[in-house]
């Protein structure tokens, strides 16, 4: 049975979606069957990294939540989406994206009425089964609303992304407590956008001390990654870059985990 990996951050701007896309691609490149679900329905964004525009976006998670189609009709194979940019991308790549609608009306509807959390859960379980996934990555909405609490609750692995900054830290402390209360089997922190002049070992130690939770990786604030501007999956385009190497190491750590524990 596949693992559900939620990537969460208490505030926006931590680089969460970028990390989710890179980790999903790395897992798929390692031969795993992987899907990425954008549950950040209020401010979707991860589709951009996979080369989807408003015009090329087909059915969305919103269609499923509003009972207009089954979930498997929303899952789009990523190799089709990216074959233009990456002609060498393996034909065997088993990676799907379940995007969220970027239609203003659809987003407005969710903001006004919310959506059925139980149906979201049902959809995610169906995806795991139907696509015979090894990993289901959930790109969550920042904060701790009901949809996000659900994602955390059903996760086997929760990756909490934070910057070394007071507000991120305060929110992360709450998220960590909630994850423990919901018995998430694997909880890791990822400290992102750390100024390169900092002592990364020291940052790791302080964060682990503060949260009593393991830090899976400390990633630098990289001008190159920022310059890429979420236009592509960075570790795919620049595999030799030091940032990409760190992401691969993180991915390897993730792939070594087992269900339950």
């Amino acid at each position, binding site marked *: 049975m596949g693992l559900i990996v939620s990537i969460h951050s208490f505030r926006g701007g931590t680089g969460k979606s970028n990390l989710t896309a890179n980790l999903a691609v790395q897992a798929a490149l390692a031969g795993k069957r992987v899907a990425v679900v954008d549950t950040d329905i209020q401010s979707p964004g991860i589709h951009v990294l996979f080369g989807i525009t408003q015009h090329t976006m087909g059915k969305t998670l919103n269609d499923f939540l509003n009972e207009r189609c089954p979930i498997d009709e929303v899952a789009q194979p990523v190799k089709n989406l990216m074959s233009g940019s990456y002609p060498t991308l393996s034909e065997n790549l088993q990676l799907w994206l379940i995007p969220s609608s970027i239609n203003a009306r659809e987003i407005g509807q969710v903001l006004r009425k919310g959506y059925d959390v139980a149906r979201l*859960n049902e959809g995610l379980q169906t995806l795991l*089964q139907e696509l015979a996934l090894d990993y289901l990555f959930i790109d969550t909405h920042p904060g701790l609303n009901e949809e996000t609490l*659900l994602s955390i609750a059903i996760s086997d692995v929760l990756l909490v992304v934070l910057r070394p900054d*007071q507000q991120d830290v305060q929110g992360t402390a709450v998220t960590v407590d909630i994850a423990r209360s919901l018995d998430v089997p694997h909880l890791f922190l990822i400290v992102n956008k750390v100024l390169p002049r*900092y002592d990364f070992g020291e940052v790791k130690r302080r964060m682990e001390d*503060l949260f009593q939770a393991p830090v899976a990786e400390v990633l630098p604030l990289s001008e190159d990654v920022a310059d890429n501007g979420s236009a592509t999956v960075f570790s795919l385009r620049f595999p030799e870059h030091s940032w990409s190497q760190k992401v691969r190491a993180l991915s390897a750590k993730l792939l070594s985990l087992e269900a339950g524990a």
Partner: protein
Amino acid sequence: MTDIVRSLERSLLFGNQPKETLALIGQQFRVRTLSSGEILFRKGEQGDALFIVAEGRLQIVTQNAQGDEVILNECGVGETIGEMSLVDESPRSATVIALEPTVMLELKREDFLQLLDEQPKIALLLLLTLISRLRFATTYIEKATEWSRKVSQGDYAFIEESVPLRGAEEKAQQFLGAFFQMVRDVQQREQALRQQIQALQIEVDEVRRRQAVEELTATEFYHTLRQQAQELRRHRHSGKRKGE
């Protein structure tokens, strides 16, 4: 008028010698006066004389790799300059400038050699001076080895125990100067990094944390979710992947 013998008496090089010897040696010295800012010799010039400071003060300077002037040391009454070139005629390793009106006693190489013929024990005297400088250099190499070990262990306390550089040969001084500068820079960088991390006010307000968690977990939704999640996890991992 400078009293050469009295000046030699006050010098580190000849201070221990009896007056008769000094009178003899003194005959070979010439008095040379420098005004403030006047250059005694420049780095790279052929060295053919030894100097003893009778009055005043001088500065020993060189240039670093970037071409900037680096002050190596200051030299005062009784100190000797250039005794190595007296023996081997090597080029001057640094530039020497008078900091104030200064009186030097100059001993030319040829006069020195003549003196050696007449007074062989002068050679012994010079040998002793050179050996003490060599010992000084060797001691500092040993110390530098020990200091390097300390630096790699993050122990910088030795910087505070000030290092007496006087008496060291210019190159040794240059090395020690660069070494200590390096250690100070490394220490400063390390401190700056520590401060930056401490300045990252990463403190958790535990009261707010508890309040936020209580609010989130107090709802009916949360209780149901927690129960469902537990069941779901049990169910999923006891089940099989479809098709198996």
